[in-house]
């Protein structure tokens, strides 16, 4: 290897290193974070049972892309942060596989449950009253079909009857919500006893 060859190697390697160093600057910007807040109702377990159309235990299978209230008119990725802020942010649908139904009926073994948080390339919409469902986790959910302002986008989903106080994550045999905690079997038993008994044919 002669001298010219060595120089060529150094030059090319140097260019490669410079390109590598500059690369992080081309990463996308951090999304703008909004944090919404709420006043929730104080609901007893009996009130949750009463308000829920569906009480079910299910496992989160997947998370769908976040959308906003006017997604049908303008795709979420084209909406400005200000527009999304004015529209009270993003929401996200989660696909949950139903393992057990304690109240009501569902047409499909997998249902969509909406939570009013989300994230896109541009913004991150947080809300401490909302449940961020974890894929693979199991929840006992007090659900109702949503008729709220976002119901025009992908209808047919459910929402919690009282935000994060009506969704119980099941961990180590316990059912835990934002304001409540039960032994899972006790909670199931309580719910079953609270519901009117269906006559056995």
């Amino acid at each position: 290897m002669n001298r010219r060859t060595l120089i060529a190697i150094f030059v090319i390697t140097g260019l490669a290193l410079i390109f590598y160093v500059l690369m992080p600057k081309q990463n996308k910007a951090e999304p703008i974070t909004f944090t919404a807040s709420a006043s929730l109702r104080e609901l007893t377990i009996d009130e949750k049972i009463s308000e829920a159309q569906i009480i079910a235990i299910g496992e989160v299978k997947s998370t769908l892309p976040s959308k906003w209230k006017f997604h049908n008119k303008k795709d979420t990725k084209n909406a400005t942060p200000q527009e999304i802020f004015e529209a009270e942010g993003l929401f996200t649908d989660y696909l949950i596989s139903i393992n057990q139904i304690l109240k009501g009926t569902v047409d499909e073994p997998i249902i969509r449950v909406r939570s009013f948080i989300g994230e896109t390339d541009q913004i991150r919409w947080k809300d401490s009253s909302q449940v961020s469902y974890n894929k693979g986790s199991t929840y006992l959910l007090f659900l109702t079909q949503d008729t709220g302002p976002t119901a025009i986008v992908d209808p047919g989903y459910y929402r919690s009857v009282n935000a994060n106080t009506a969704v119980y994550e099941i961990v180590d045999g316990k059912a835990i919500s934002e304001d409540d905690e039960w032994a899972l079997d006790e909670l199931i038993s309580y719910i079953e006893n609270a519901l009117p008994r269906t006559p056995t044919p």
Partner: protein
Amino acid sequence: MNQKTKPIIKILGLLLTALLLFSFNISNVFSASILAPKTPTPTRTPTPTRTLTPTNTFTSTPTNTFTNTPTDTVTNTSTWTPTSTATATATINGLTVTGLSQSNGGDGILLGVNGGSSPSIGGAETDIYAWYHFDLQTDPNWNPGQKYTYLNLTVKNNTSTIKTIYASWELTSSLPVGKQQGFVQFPNYPIVWYDLPYTGNGVQITIINPGQSWTFTTKIDAKADAGRNVPYTNDHRLHLAVYPGSSGVSTPTPTPTATFTPTSTSTNTPTFTPTNTFIPATPHNNGSGTCWSSQESWDAYMVYYDILTSPIPGNITEADWVASIEAAAQTWTNVTPSNFTFVRQIGASNTVRLEVPNDESKLAASAPAPSSGFITSGYTKINPNYLWDVNNTPIPGNPGNNGSTITYNIQNVVTHELGHWLYLNDINDSNCRDVTMDYSSGHGELIKIDLDIADENAVNWQYP
């Protein structure tokens, strides 16, 4: 392979080597390019993060204090000392009688003002009456054939003689001894004589539109014909009466004859020289303490908001609705020593309004919008799907509740929501159930209307 192609092959080989050197990065390089398709982000395996016992502790302690105290006072020591005095004289009713004199050869003429009977005239002009009064005495030696006597009445305007009037009497034997009447005429001058009924009260004259000073001079000039004895009179009186008219004569404004001229000028210009400049502190953010925590702050201490009142719940008047929300805002403004202030301003972009939140299970929803580390706007939506009340009167035995089992108190909830405008976080802690920022509200609850010490600590820390 000849000698010419060898170097070319060497260079190509080196290029390939160099490409291999940074090939480990090549996928990253192209993933940043708009030409390359996006690589899906691997889904993270969820890790249960919930623990039964909150392990976070609040260690931050608000330490902000105010040390700037303006101590200046303004003292002006200059005084005003006027040396001249102002005097003014006014002419009453537009007329000044500057002199009244008589000459009658020795018999006294007494002056009276506004005496005698009231003439039967009126009108717009100011009238002045003067009449002469005398008692005729009969000289025992008087010959009734000598029957004339005279009255001279001289009218002057200031120093100029306007008119001299002569009045005469024919003294007849039939004329009773006693009061007699004289009469004068002023046909060519704005002095009008009124012929009084015979009352024995003497001569009367009326001056119309007096606007200046007048001087009256009266003179009794008793003439004797052919050396006859002159009847003499006594108790001569000249009467003046002034009757202001209703219009036509303006009442002059008193004009000061002396001008107030201050001889001393204030030369001491008071200057306020602050010895301490008050510099507001910078709002803090992302703090925490016992039963409170916060995120970003507004970059100013004064936040403008408006209340949209269309629609409002049918069971509540607009006035009560607005008053409840304003009271909620004032609760945060009242926190001391914090300088944070809510100001209601019609048309402000930050609004409290009745609107269904995206999650319609919420009683109310708020969202402050941060930008560049500061809050730039905010709103609160109050859910109209629930029933509301404005009754802040607690039931006996429960100061934190108005007894309603179907409605939510609007001031209770909005006070909590406006705490979010300050970017205070919801608190869900069994040891902090009485704080305004507790995340949930029950029917009839009033407890959030009054701030807890934790709420005040939060504001004082966030907005010192």
